[in-house]
């Protein structure tokens, strides 16, 4: 493996994690890591456990065995609100913005944390409105009235309000028009530029290979392949095997 895959002091590390939904064995010994400021992709078909991996990191699902570490400390089974305050941002599949709250109120839920000065809040808001001008335009509108693409932007902006060390992005291009896909790519670049690590779950192979330094390919709850994106092309045999038909 190239130097790009060196694992000194990763920000997030999963080691042999097993997770169940009732009796369903969703994660079957999954191991992966994300370095500080790194953008890493998780590819795989439906139902292989990609979303569950993110949920396990976010504390929404409790692992039954294995180790989940964030910033050097064991976080398996910790409460999600504590993890959010520690610096993990979560953007779920289907966005889940607060539909009855305005755009501004949605952002406020991440902004009203302890120890954040009013100035820093204003600066964060200004930054987010610069990156997502349409959110600024619609700041007084209820979240549920936004289009799918706008809701996706709001979901990401909301997570950015936490000033997280890593953002977990679950299928951000799902259900979006093709021209929005490049916008998502641009947003991921911005996050990397700001030093925020990203763990990206996707089924869109070109976007993932373009945005991520490394990709893991998941099948049946475990990692089947791991490579630097530079070593993989979209038509690689491995990609076809695990994602194609």
């Amino acid at each position, binding site marked *: 493996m190239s130097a790009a895959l060196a694992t000194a002091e990763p920000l997030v590390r999963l080691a042999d994690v097993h997770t169940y939904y009732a009796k369903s064995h969703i994660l079957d010994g999954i191991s992966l890591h994300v370095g500080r400021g790194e953008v890493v992709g998780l590819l795989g078909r439906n139902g292989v456990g990609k979303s569950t991996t993110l949920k396990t990191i976010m504390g929404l699902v409790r692992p039954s065995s294995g180790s989940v570490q964030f910033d050097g400390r064991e976080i398996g089974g910790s409460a999600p609100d504590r993890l*959010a305050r520690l610096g993990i941002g979560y953007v779920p599949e289907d966005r889940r913005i607060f539909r009855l709250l305005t755009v501004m109120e949605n952002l406020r839920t991440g902004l009203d944390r302890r120890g954040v000065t009013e100035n820093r809040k204003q600066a964060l808001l200004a930054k987010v409105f610069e990156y997502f001008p349409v959110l600024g335009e619609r700041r007084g509108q209820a979240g549920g009235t936004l289009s799918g693409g706008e809701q996706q932007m709001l979901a990401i902006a909301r997570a950015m309000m936490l000033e997280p060390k890593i953002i977990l992005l679950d299928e951000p291009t799902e259900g979006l028009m093709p021209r929005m896909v490049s916008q998502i790519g641009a947003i991921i670049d911005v996050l990397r530029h700001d030093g925020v690590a990203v763990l990206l779950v996707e089924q869109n192979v070109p976007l993932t290979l373009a945005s991520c330094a490394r990709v893991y390919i998941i099948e049946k709850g475990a990692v089947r392949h791991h490579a630097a994106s530079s070593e993989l092309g979209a038509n690689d045999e491995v990609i076809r095997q695990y994602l194609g038909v």
Partner: protein
Amino acid sequence: MQGLLDLILIQTVNGIVTGMILALVASGLTLIFGIMDVVNFAHGELFMLGAYLGVVVLATTGSFWLALLFATLIVALLGAALQIVTLRPLIGRDPLTTILATFGVSLVLQNYALWQFGPVARKIGEPITSHFTLFYLEYPWYRIAIAALSAGIIGSLWLFLKYGRYGIWIRATIQDRVMAQAMGIPVPWVYTAVFAIGAGMAAASGVLFGPLVGVNHAMGLDWILKAFIVVVVGGMGNLGGSILASIFVSLMEAYASIWVSPAQAVIASFVVLILTLLFRPTGLFVPTPK
């Protein structure tokens, strides 16, 4: 004919007054259900405890307003303690367990009150004793004051939810408790706070209503039944709906008692409940679900 019209207008005023107190009790109940799926069977006892505390503080300080303030605060704290001790351990379990837990709490509180204060009803003196002439009646100003105060308290709650920093936390948690947690909102504490608010509002209603009836250990029972009817008719978890439903149901009862005795007029509430469940089970004042 003139007599009937006057009677209807008087009953309208009465209905609104009763409706506002009921709204104060019911909004706490519906808020608690809406945010944490808990049916609080102890709500009537919190109302009752508020009234008794009002009696005690009034006797000690001689001020009705201090009684209102302290009863509200103390019962709010008690509510928080109750939630932490009996309900927090049950989060995520079968809702039946929380029903049993709150029912158990209600039994404990009722019997505590009976043991502490005895079976004889106490009285809270009205803070405002003047009357004004409403048609042919000498109508007490106090009743108007109750309605205004209740409206004020509910209005403050609404403002807090809409504009307060923690109000946003509460509204976010009501909509999506999982994502609220993922945004760093300490949801277990939000639950405690909402329970405390609901308890405090019930206590305030108890003190406000105290002068109109006797304060005794069983006074919660009547009110909790009406409050549940109102919560269902208004739409469970729907704050605005429960307020409208409170006034609606109270008006129905007030009008009904023009022709039948008040005890029989209660049937009007049940009729409204049954019709709601038959035709608009999600609530009369809730937009029809698609």
